[in-house]
């Protein structure tokens, strides 16, 4: 078992995959956190911005549209992550582990 860990750690493919995966995770986290806190900061400091309506013939305000937008964005981004992970990460991960386990003892 320890050998397998050592081989994985020495495998450049593993580091490349970890890097790709964590870059995607952090990028998506940043987008969600940024849009959520942007919405919250406007409520906290500039509520009047959110009181404006979207147009002259609607009562829907920028704030409500923004809030519902954050909900939809959050769900969409989880979908993107799942799609990426299912399409690429899982297969690569399996390959790396199988490779490390099959290598002859050195």
């Amino acid at each position, binding site marked *: 078992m320890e050998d397998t860990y050592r081989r994985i750690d020495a495998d450049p493919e593993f580091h490349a995959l970890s890097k790709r995966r964590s870059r995607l995770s952090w990028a998506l*986290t940043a987008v969600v956190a940024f849009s959520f806190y942007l919405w*919250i900061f406007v409520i906290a400091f500039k509520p009047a911005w959110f009181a404006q309506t979207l147009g002259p013939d609607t009562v829907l305000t920028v*704030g409500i549209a923004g809030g519902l937008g*954050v909900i939809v964005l959050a769900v969409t981004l989880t979908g993107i992550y799942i799609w990426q992970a299912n399409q690429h990460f899982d297969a690569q991960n399996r390959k790396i582990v199988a490779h490390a386990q099959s290598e002859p003892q050195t």
Partner: protein
Amino acid sequence: MPKVNRRLKKALPLFLLTPAASAATPVNTSGIAIGFFLLFVCTTLGITWWAARRTLTTRDFYAAGGNITGFQNGLAIAGDFMSAASFLGVSGLIFGFGFDGLIYAVGGLAGWPMVLFLLSERLKNLGKYTFADAVSLRLAATPIRCLAASGSLVAVVLYLIGQMVGAGKLIEVLFGLHYSIAVGAVGALMIVYVCFGGMIATTWVQIIKAVLLLSGATLVTFLVLQRFGFSFEALFRAAIAEHPRQDAIMAPGALVHDPLSVISLATATMFGTAGLPHILMRFFTVPNAREARRSVFFASAFIGYFYLLTFIIGFGAIALVAGKPDFLDAAGKLIGGDNMAAIHLARAAGGELLLGFMSAVCFATILAVVSGLTLSGASAISHDLYANVFRPGASEQEVVKVSRIATIVLGLVSVSLALLFESQNVAYMVLLAFAVGASVNFPLLFLAMYWSRLTTTGALTGGVAGLLTAVGFIVLGPTVWVEVLGHAAPIVPYKYPALFAMAVSFTGSIVVSLLDRSPRAARERAAFRHLYIRSQTGLGSEGATPH
């Protein structure tokens, strides 16, 4: 001042239900609700009987054998999150204040992507039954398990009392049942589900309830939109015309004014989710990291959909319920308080049958959520403390037995405390539960998985400091110092401690870890590589039971 206090009480829907009337006329006196509810109880007891025969090992009891699929688990997670408090509370808040209710909805959802991107897969790869498994891998197991188990138990027990008190009052208003009978019934059913059926029964109760709640809310929303020709514009205009605050309901500012409070509240709703042990525990019921990941996707999709419905229901209630004499008491207030807005709307939109159905669904929701909480509390006692700290060599049967005893004890304790606190404002307990989740459990879990330099001493210092800050802020803040102890002004002016306690916890853990030069710290840092590889690849993690 009283005006401010009323606002403070209203600002708690995610955390607690506080129906205004305690012994008012029940909303619902027909037998339809009772009938639906009995049907739910019979079905779930049948499932518990079926599950009990499959609950033999600790793996069955804590993790449903690891055989739940991502889709099922997503529904169950959504069920854990969609409590009666978040359905009735958020729709009631939108009914009362319009826009500001949306803060809870958006905050409640925004935490989920973060759980998915950063925690779910690693947690599944590292842990076995509880999140304490994952954090104690690299650090000194005994003190860290004690910290994680305390963090879990404090959060669970406080949250449980809050839910039970809210449940007793809600059922009193909904069905006209006496408070103590309602609390006793909830306690008894919850003990039966968890004690006999373990995680298998708890998961299926949660799934059934989630499906019922989502379908009921969908139906109410559909009927409301139908009234307005499926035009949101028409719905909003009708709501603005009915509401005393007029078009101010479309803009922020009715509920929270102080910027720092808004930010701290947002932080509590976002990170509290990621630190609630009954939700973290759900990641161990699936066979692998892929299913753990899928569960969060389904959970966030269901929760997002649920909040969109809740939003429409809140505005629908303003348009169709507010100002209709049928739904008001002598003083012109909504019967049963603003939290009953969704229930009244069910009647306005779909008549007695829908009213009965939605009332029963709310009762079922309470039952499912308290069961999940009790199970995670029992796991902290039996798995983290008994099997790993006090009796490391205990056999499977013994641990399952201890889990069942712990379930009964937790059930009895929470019923007794709920009876004791009947006429008290227990809002602070639930605020504290979320603050502990965000400031003890979440930093511990996050740093243990992501930061190689974290040491046991650092984690303990940060965790304890975060806990003390959360407790201190709550005791000296408006919720306890003013509302419970009756002082004129709070010593700490902030109601939501999460932002501050989280900052203290992270700072404490990081600074003390960096200063830690002990040999143990060096070993713990060296062990990070191994943990990192396991968290990334799933190598050596707990899989499903082989078939």
